[in-house]
């Protein structure tokens, strides 16, 4: 079987060589995606050329937030019920180390240099600051009830944390590590994402059913994205993950139990299309060439592959139980 695949691939390679033009126009980069499976206590490794799971890595209990280190050498995965963040060596694809994250880590963000990690600890209303090189804890920042969403402004000066029961986006100055502003959003803010040009911060509210668009300079909500799907009750629309294209023109929003990803035109803040994916879609990641967007569908235990340009779901890949987070090698 494996031989067959290899033969097929080498044949495809030869075809590619023969038609050199095609090769240049559509370079067949293969990427590697890592998916945390909350219930299985595993991380599934997906090859984006064959669209298959190539390895399943055993990790700690309740893996959720997952991200590559900036140098691409490690995958960090928050294993909440073990109160730590584990480091997976991207070469050997096995757990090699862990970070002193504080209790019940869920999501985290790192600075541009990849030196400082900020971790949301749901159980004690804090954001923990970790030195990634020394793997040491630098301190804590007190935030609202049940911190979850984490992101850093493109200039690296502001850390955003959302707190699910306080219903705020907290703006934290990364140099002083103090909260400089709190912006009230709709109920249960789960995820925060900046536009690449830093002009807007988008925050999803799972129970509120909206995405708040915040002016990061004025610390004000300047607009909201609303969702409406015919035939679906409003309560089922629960926005969580947000993916913004590099040109900032299009945002993809995962709508949880609505089983759809909304395609949003960022200029008008209107939904242009709903893409049907797997069940209870939460998080997502683009391939670095931005050709594909991969989403984690918790209840159907799979990952949907969206062709970004065509705005179409082209594939479904079975992973472990309750897939939660996803990251793709840079």
């Amino acid at each position, binding site marked *: 079987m494996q031989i067959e695949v290899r033969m097929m691939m080498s044949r495809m390679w030869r075809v590619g060589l023969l038609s050199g033009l095609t090769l240049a126009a559509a370079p067949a980069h293969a990427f590697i995606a890592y998916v945390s499976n909350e219930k299985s206590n595993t991380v599934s490794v997906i090859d984006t050329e064959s669209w298959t799971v190539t390895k399943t890595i055993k990790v700690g209990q309740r893996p959720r937030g997952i991200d590559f280190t900036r140098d691409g050498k490690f995958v960090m995965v928050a294993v909440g019920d073990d109160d730590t963040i584990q480091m997976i060596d991207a070469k050997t694809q096995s757990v090699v180390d862990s970070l002193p994250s504080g209790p019940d880590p869920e999501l985290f963000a790192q600075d541009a240099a990849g030196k400082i990690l900020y971790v949301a600890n749901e159980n004690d209303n804090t954001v923990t600051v970790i030195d990634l090189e020394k793997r040491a804890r630098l301190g804590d920042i007190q935030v609202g*009830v049940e911190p979850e969403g984490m992101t850093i402004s493109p200039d690296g000066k502001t850390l955003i944390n959302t707190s699910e029961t306080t219903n705020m986006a907290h703006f934290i100055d990364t140099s002083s590590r103090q909260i400089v502003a709190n912006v009230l959003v709709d109920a249960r803010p789960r995820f925060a994402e900046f536009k690449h040009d830093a002009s807007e911060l988008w925050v999803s509210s799972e129970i*509120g059913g909206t995405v708040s668009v915040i002016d990061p300079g004025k610390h004000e909500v300047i607009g909201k994205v609303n969702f409406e799907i015919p035939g679906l009750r409003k*309560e089922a629309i629960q926005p969580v993950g947000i993916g913004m294209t590099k040109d900032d023109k299009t945002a993809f929003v995962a709508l949880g139990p609505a089983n759809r990803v909304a395609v949003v035109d960022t200029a008008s803040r209107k939904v242009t299309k709903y893409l049907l994916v797997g069940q209870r879609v939460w998080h997502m990641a683009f391939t670095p060439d931005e050709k594909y967007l991969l989403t984690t569908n918790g209840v159907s235990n799979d990952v949907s592959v969206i062709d970004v340009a065509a705005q179409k779901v082209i594939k479904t890949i079975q992973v472990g139980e309750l897939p939660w987070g996803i990251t793709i090698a840079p």
Partner: protein
Amino acid sequence: MIRWLVGLIGLGLAATSALAADPVMIGVGYLGVAGARSTLSLVEQPAENDGVAGARLAIEDNNTTGKFLNQRFALEERRIKEGEDVVQAATDLAARNGFVIADLPADALLKVADALRERGTLLFNAGAIDERLREADCRANVIHTAPTRAMLADALGQYLVWKQWKRWLLVVGSHDEDKLFADALRRTATRFGAKIVQERSFEDKGGARRTDSGVTQIQRQMPVFTQQAPAYDVLVAADESEVFAAYLPYRTWDPRPVAGSAGLVARSWDAAQDQWGAIQMQNRFIKLNSRRMSALDMQAWTAVRMLGEATSRTNSGDVKKVTDFIKGPDFSVAAFKGTKLTLRDWNLQLRQPILLVDGRMVVSVSPQEGFLHQVSELDTLGYDRPESKCKLK
């Protein structure tokens, strides 16, 4: 280095609060009855601080949020002893608190509501499940976070019907509350197409709930009590008074599951609920109170969280402003039940999913799939707008 940094963060916080104006104080009263009721199961015996412990956690949650808004919540608890005047106690509590969470029997609650009406105090009914408080006896100054008997019965009934257990043997206790629960179950059966094949009543002849060798007798009595029943799928017990229902599982003459007041039970909350982020809430509760969280705790928590939600959205502690916002169309609250909770504007009852639990696990959550409604599927539980007899005043 680490100490220096932590110190710096601490110093920063201190400086901010020193500069800030005096916080807006929001007083919340908690009015309950002294002494806990007795249950058949020792593990279900409510704690002395049942209910108020949930309110305390919500006060902490609100104060964490309040730090960022310069709002400060405080809780004042008052327990009525037998023979004490509830209106006097409520008036006293309302003198210092604009909001009062009540865990009182229906009659006492109505007296308090009427006594506090002129004052403008907003009451939350966290304990009483009586239908009449949301129907003929509804009050414009009482918001209900406790579900009603009809909501609980419908939640259970939807599941039993979904399971195709449509033939019910109904066993009813001899106290008033038992009969009210039986009424609700009969209504549910009619609504959802279940059939009560027979009704039996279990007379409370008195006697202790704790005995040294009671189990021997119970094992003989329960099979005899349930024998010669017509064919049925599930025994549904209405025993809010805790006289017999907990004795029924595994002891029925025919091998049948038990539901209602024992076996599969409908509740607003359970210590086993861990979905939709609830685990964080359960952990916070255990950390604060050194015990697990009950349905009453949750109903009180939700009431105080509704206040926190309203004070943060209105950026105000003003009783009138907060009350108007809670009763208004834009209000909703998140309470770890997978969907936003809103108020039925015709009787101020909180819409909520209901858990079906067996004492160890959450078996299901109602409304069940397929029970549809034109406004909210949550309104398939309990009395709906067209049926309501409530005129808010």
